[in-house]
C-alpha cells in the first residue's frame, strides 16, 4: 500500500458485527488493521479488509453501498454507536479515515431497528420505507396530461423549502438513531416536500393520513428526542415533523369537500 501526502494510521482494531442470516444471533468479530492511509474512505478500509479476507479464504463482510458520493442512500452502518459515524452531515461513504486516530478501536454494527431486519452482517432490509411512499408519497400525475411547467408560479422560498425537505436520501439513519425506532423524519421530509408545493394540495390530507398511518404500522412513535436530525447525513431539519403533525391533525378534521377554499 502506498501513501502520499496523507498521513498513515496504524494499529486500528475493528469490532465488526457478523451475522450469517436473519435467524443467526450474530456476534462481534475482531479484525486488526495494522496500517491505513488517512486519505482512504471508511468504506475503502472495509474494501481492503475484504480483499484480505478473501485472499485468506474467509468470507467477506457484507455491507450495503453504491454511489460513494453521499447521494444514493444505500450505505448505512452504526460506527461507534452513531449512525453514519462521528462526522455531522456526512454519510458513511463520505467519511474518511483522517477522522480517526492511530490505535483506535472502531465498533461497526448494522443499523439497529426492529423495522430494519438484518439480512446478513451489516446489511439490513429497509423496504418498509418503500411501503410508506407507495401509499401516498407522490402527486398523482399520469404521464401525458401535464400543463405547462410555468403555468403555476411557485414563490422561491416555497420551492427552496420543498427542496430542503426533498433532499432526504432515504438511508434510514433517522430510524437507527431514534431510541424509539421512529420514521418521523423520513416521512415528514416527504410530506413537507409534497405538501408545501401548490401541485401537492389536491391530495395533501389524503396523503398525510395514509403515510402517517402506514408509518405507524411499521415504526415506533416519535417522542421528540431529536436524535434523527443530529444523525441525518443531509441535515434535514426536525421542522418537517412539525409540518407532518400539523397536517395530520388537519387531515382528521378537514372537510375535504371544501379543499379548494383557502
Amino acid at each position, binding site marked *: *500500500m502506498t501513501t*502520499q*501526502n*496523507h498521513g498513515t494510521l496504524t494499529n486500528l482494531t475493528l469490532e465488526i458485527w457478523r451475522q450469517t*442470516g436473519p435467524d443467526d444471533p450474530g456476534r462481534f468479530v475482531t479484525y486488526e488493521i495494522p496500517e491505513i*492511509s*488517512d*486519505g*482512504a*474512505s471508511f*468504506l475503502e478500509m472495509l*474494501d481492503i479488509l*475484504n*480483499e484480505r*479476507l*478473501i*485472499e485468506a479464504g474467509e*468470507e*467477506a463482510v*457484507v455491507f*450495503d453501498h*453504491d*454511489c*460513494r*458520493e*453521499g447521494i*444514493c*442512500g*444505500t450505505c448505512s452502518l452504526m460506527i461507534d454507536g452513531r449512525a453514519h459515524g462521528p462526522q455531522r452531515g456526512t454519510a458513511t461513504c*463520505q467519511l*474518511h479515515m483522517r477522522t480517526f486516530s492511530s490505535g483506535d478501536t472502531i465498533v461497526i454494527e448494522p443499523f439497529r431497528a426492529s423495522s430494519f431486519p438484518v439480512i*446478513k452482517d451489516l*446489511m439490513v432490509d*429497509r423496504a418498509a*420505507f*418503500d411501503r410508506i*411512499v*407507495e*401509499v401516498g408519497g*407522490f402527486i398523482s*400525475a399520469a404521464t*401525458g396530461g*401535464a*400543463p405547462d*411547467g*410555468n403555468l403555476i*408560479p*411557485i*414563490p*422561491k422560498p416555497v*420551492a*427552496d423549502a420543498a*427542496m430542503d425537505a*426533498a*433532499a432526504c436520501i*432515504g438511508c434510514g439513519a433517522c430510524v437507527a438513531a431514534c431510541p424509539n425506532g421512529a420514521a418521523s423524519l423520513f416521512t415528514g421530509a416527504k410530506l413537507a416536500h*409534497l405538501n408545501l*408545493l401548490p*401541485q*401537492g394540495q389536491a391530495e395533501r390530507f389524503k396523503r398525510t393520513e395514509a403515510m402517517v398511518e402506514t408509518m405507524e404500522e411499521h415504526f415506533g412513535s416519535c417522542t421528540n428526542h431529536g436524535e434523527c436530525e443530529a444523525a441525518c447525513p443531509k441535515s434535514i431539519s426536525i421542522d418537517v415533523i412539525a409540518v407532518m403533525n400539523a397536517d395530520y391533525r388537519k387531515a382528521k378534521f378537514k372537510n375535504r369537500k371544501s379543499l379548494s377554499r383557502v
Partner: protein
Amino acid sequence: MSIELDAKIPEGPLADKWDNYKEHEKLVNPANKRKFKIIVVGTGLAGASACATLAELGYQVEAFTFHDSPRRAHSIAAQGGINAAKNYRGDGDSINRLFHDTIKGGDFRAREANVHRLAQVSVDIIDQMVAQGVPFAREYGGLLDNRSFGGAQVSRTFYARGQTGQQLLLGAYQQMARQVGLGNVKLWNRMELVDVVVVDGRCAGIVTRDLMTGEVSSHSAHAVVLATGGYGNAFFLSTNAMTCNVTAAWRAHRKGALFANPCYTQIHPTCIPQADDFQSKLTLMSESLRNDGRVWVPENPDDTRSPDQIPEAERDYILERLYPSYGNLAPRDISSRAAKRAVDSGRGVGPLKNGVYLDFSDAIGRLGKSVVEERYGNLFDMYRQITGENPYEVPMRIYPASHYTMGGIWVDYELMTTIPGLYAAGEANFSDHGANRLGASALMQGLADGYFVLPYTISNYLAPFLNKPIPDTSHEAFGVAEQQARDRFARFLSIGGTRSPDYFHRELGKIIWDYCGMERNRQGLEKALSEIPALYDEFQKDLRVTGDGESTNQTLEKAGRVEDFFELGMLMCHDALDREESCGGHFRSEHQTEEGEALRDDDNFAHVSAWEWTGDPARPNLHEEALVYEEVQLQTRSYK
C-alpha cells in the same frame, strides 16, 4: 449469419416523423392492456418512468432492481441539470436548435430521427416533472430558472441545486411507487438479471438470481425492457456507482442483441484525481466550476514548489493557450485530452503527479470569497471532505475520469433491439448521443425513453399478439437458461484460486484505461487485445470466491459482473481498432489534424458499428447501419 439492420425510421419530413409514427402505430384497447405482461429491468430514470407509464396505461408490469429500493439507481447521482427546448429565456432556443446542438455535440455519429424526437419530447418532460412535484430551481417571480451548459449558446438547462438527478429520479420513483401501491406494478428488489430467454426468435422473458437467497428463477412476459445503464465501470475507476455493470446488456448481447459503438465512452475532465492504489471510485466535480476556475500546470516538470510560489510566467494555462476563444470552457472531450497530454509530459501536479490545477485564486481576488462560495460552496465542501485540502486556499487538483458511455445495445427507432420483444432504454441503448454526449442530456434521454417513447412503441409490437399464447416459464428454454446460470455461479465458487474478483477488475480496468481510454492507437489496442484474454484466462484459473451461493454473497455477484466486463472490454477494443477515424470521445492518435484535433472520416465511417456475438469474444461479427442525414450538414467541430 446476416442480420438486416432496419432502423424503421418513419416516412415524411424529419419534423413530422414522430407524429406520423404515432398516427399510424397499432394500439391495444384499454381493456385488453391488462392481458399483456411487460418486464422492466432497472429502475433508474428510464426504467422507473417506463414502469409508471406502462402501468398507468393498464399493462401488467413487473419491475426488477438489484438495489434494495428502486430509488438507489445511479441516475440519482447526476448533478447539473436536464436540457429542454422550452425557450423560457426567449434567447432563440427551439426544438430544431436543441436537435442541431445534440447532433453536432455527438460529432455527427447519432441517428437523426431519434435525436429529433428527443428534442421534441424534451419540452413535455419538464411539464411532467413539474406536475409531479419536482422542486426545480425558481426565480423570485416563481417561474422556472435555467442555467447554461457546454456545447450550447442558449440557456436551456433546468436544475434542482446540484442534485437534479436525485430529484428527477425521486419523481419517477414516486410515480412508480404509486403504481406498486395500486397493485399495477409488481416490484422485485435485490434481484439480478442473469439471462435473457429467447424462444422462436422472440424475447420470452428473463432469468434472475435473488441476491439474498441465491435462488435462480424464471419470469416470462410479452415484452422485456432493459433500462440497466451504461458500462463505464469497465475502466474499474469511474464516476459510476460501485455496482453499475454491463451484465444485463451483455447477457442480451450473448443471446443475439447487437451491441453498438462500444468504443464511444465519455471521459469527463473535472474529477478528483486518484489518491491511492486502493481507491474504489472517482468523484465528479461539476463542469460548472470551469466558469471561474483556470486550468494550469507548471512549465517545468521538476517544479516542486507549492502552487502559490510559482510565478505567473512559469505557469502554462493549457486551455487558454490552446483554445483561446473557448478557454477553460472548451468541451469535455477536448479539455480531457489537454489535461492528459500535460500529465503525460511529466507536468502533472499533486503527490502522484496525476492531475492539473483548477485555480480559483483569480476569481476569489476579482469577485471576493463570498461570491465564489455562493456559486460553488457545496462543491468546495465536497472537495475538502474527500481530499482534506481547502480549495479556497490551494488550487483544486482535477483529472479526467470515465463518466458515461454513449455506446450500448443497438435499437431501432422504436427502441427495440435486434431481438423482437426486447427493448433497451436510457444509457443502456446507443441511439441519441453519437460519439459524445452533451452535459444535461442524459437525464433528458432517460426520461424521454421511459415516459414518452416506449409506451407508444411497445403497443405497436404487442397489438398483434392479443389472445395468443406466449411461452411460459415451463418452456424448456427457461430451464436450460436457469441451469446454465446455476452452473456458472457454481463454477465461480469452485475455482478456488488466490485472487478476488476486485483484483481482476482493477487489472482489467488498467488495461482498458491505458489502451482504450482517452487516446487510442493501433499498437496499444492490439496490445490490449492480447493482454485482456491472458488476464481472462488467469481469472478462469485463479479466481477465489469465498462464501456460498445460498445467501447474500457480494463477492459472487461481483465475479459474474467482472466476467462480463472481460468480454465487453475485448469488444470495446475491437470496435476502437476497427474505427479508423477520430470522433467525439473516440480519439485515435493516428487520425488527428496538425493541431492535434480529432479527424473524422465521413466517407468511410459515417455509420453505426453494431457487433454480433459469435460465441468467441475474440471474433465478433460487424454489421453496419449507415447514418443518412437528410437535414444536417456534416461539419468539422472547432473550438479554437
